């Protein structure tokens, strides 16, 4: 009774009028979503104007001036390099460490030990980036524990101010992301692993397969489709290198390596009041994101995996 197709139904308006209660429960919220998500898209016109807040949308039109400026701006090239570099580091670290940890946890026999390790490793996911940045700068301070350990291991001779080392910044961000999210990211792999038939492991064990070959021939193939889908979808977010951690840890010394596209947008908009250029930068990012996402989704379908959009 309830599955009658909409277009074949006798009268749309008649049916809607009997469903007024459902309409009142959903319409205001849908309008709210339209207002807060889709209406701001109209603000993209700012990218094609010399936007002045006092004049609003009556500001003069300038065509693609800001995009031309963007792509010829040396700073923007640098910003793109930083964004992509940090994204790739996050992507590769994110996958390898999470899969590695999930494989390890999956082999832990003791339930209590496993759940203790999981509980601890999920915790940082719930902390704010401000707290994480506070912890990172304490650890990396010139008299911080990181310097002590590295000196003790003989990797460095003198304590360094790590956040003042431009070239170290990408890696600091990469490892901080691992620290915060590695445990959380194992959840999805562990779920996929728990769906693998235990009989496969038993059979392999009887056949004399060692641990590593069981992992290679049973566990990894069992989570392959999860890995592929996540990898493809994450490629769709390659323009998102994160914003908060870079914003919080950047300083004058690491500026050339810490400025990501989001920080560029904030700098031009908030500091210099150049909303048009900031919007052009943001719009460029959003459009590339959407194109990559659609491509990733299409590719995921091609590989016979579940489409996510």
């Amino acid at each position: 009774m309830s599955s009658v197709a909409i277009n074949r139904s006798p009268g749309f308006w008649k049916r809607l009028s009997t469903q007024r209660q459902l309409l009142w429960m959903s319409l205001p919220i849908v309008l709210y979503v339209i207002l807060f998500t889709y209406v701001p898209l109209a603000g993209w016109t700012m990218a094609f104007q010399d936007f002045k807040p006092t004049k609003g949308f009556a500001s003069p039109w300038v065509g693609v001036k800001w995009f031309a400026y963007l792509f010829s701006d040396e700073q923007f090239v640098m910003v793109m390099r930083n964004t992509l570099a940090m994204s790739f580091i996050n992507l590769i670290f994110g996958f390898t460490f999470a899969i590695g940890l999930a494989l390890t946890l999956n082999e832990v026999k003791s339930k209590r030990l496993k759940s203790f390790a999981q509980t601890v490793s999920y915790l940082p996911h719930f902390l704010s980036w401000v707290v994480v940045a506070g912890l990172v700068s304490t650890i990396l301070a010139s008299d911080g524990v990181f310097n002590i350990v590295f000196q003790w291991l003989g990797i460095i001779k003198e304590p360094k101010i790590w956040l003042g080392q431009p070239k170290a910044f990408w890696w600091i961000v990469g490892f901080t992301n691992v620290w915060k999210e590695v445990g959380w990211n194992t959840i999805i792999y562990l779920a996929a692993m728990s769906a693998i038939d235990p009989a496969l492991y038993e059979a392999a064990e009887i056949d004399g397969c060692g641990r590593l070959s069981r992992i290679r021939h049973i566990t990894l193939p069992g989570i392959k489709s999860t890995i592929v889908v996540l990898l493809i979808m994450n490629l769709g977010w390659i323009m998102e290198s994160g914003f908060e951690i870079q914003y919080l840890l950047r300083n004058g010394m690491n500026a050339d390596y810490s400025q990501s596209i989001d920080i560029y947008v904030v700098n031009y908009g908030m500091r210099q009041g150049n909303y048009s250029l900031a919007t052009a930068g943001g719009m460029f990012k959003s459009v590339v994101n959407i194109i990559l996402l659609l491509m990733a989704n299409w590719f995921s379908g091609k590989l016979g995996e579940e489409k996510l959009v």
Partner: protein
Amino acid sequence: MKMRFGGKLYLSKQSLLGEIGFSLYKAVTLTFIVLVTLYPFWNTVVISFNQAVDTTRGGVYLWPRIWTFQNYKSIWVTSNIPHALFISVARAVISAVLNLFLTTMVAYALSRKEFVLRKPFTLIVLLSMYVNAGLFPNYFLIRNLHLNGTFWVYVIPTMISAFNFIVIRTFIKTIPESLFESARIDGTSEFRIFLSFVLPLSKPVLATVALFVAVGAWNAWFDTLLYNSAKPELFTLQYQLMALLQQSMNQSKSAADINSAGMAANIIASTVTPMSIRAAGTIIATVPILIVYPFLQKYFVVGMNVGSIKE
């Protein structure tokens, strides 16, 4: 990590060594993970309780050398933390309540198969996950709505998230249809059904979503910077901590240049340092998360699994 040799007599010497090596690897990895995750907190706790000037001499890693509450005292007084704490709690609680109520209501309405506008409305909500106009278009919307400079800028722009919508709707679909049917035959209105059946029955998933929303609201700070940086009475705890952090970063930068002499005089003059203040602030902002974490932990795996089921 027990080794059960009994059942594995057929193991060759080589694979026995492999087993031992693997157990060793597991023990080392898990110990490393636990230590690396927890030590930064411990280090920060220790610094926050250590006398500030003494901390700058270095070597405070495992236990405070000179105990003090001065760091906490001065942060409590100078940054008006109690008020920021109040704003942060209010924001987290109000956001969670509004999110739950509104998201569940729309999820219920859009889970009704006979609703003629179900498909277009669902599409509008779901696509919002992928659409983002960017910082300044959103900024001007907030300004045009006169939400900036008010408490409500913390709540109103984030009342619905497409992800939570999927999670809640997936759960509602598991509630047996017959339950609603009989109520409807009795002439109960849809809104009434939502209030007295859907909300109470969805408790487990709502707990998860509430905690996620509350943690997200608690952890946010950029909206304060963007919209309320001229209103100290609306500063949140995370924003205050962010300000402390930026301050200490800038000072340590100059300290690095000057090094000993000038800096030392500066520090001796005051009883606290940016670093110890930052440590105390970090702990204050972390403790509430640690308090809710056991509850959070009970639910989030359930929530994640529900959320990963697509229609």
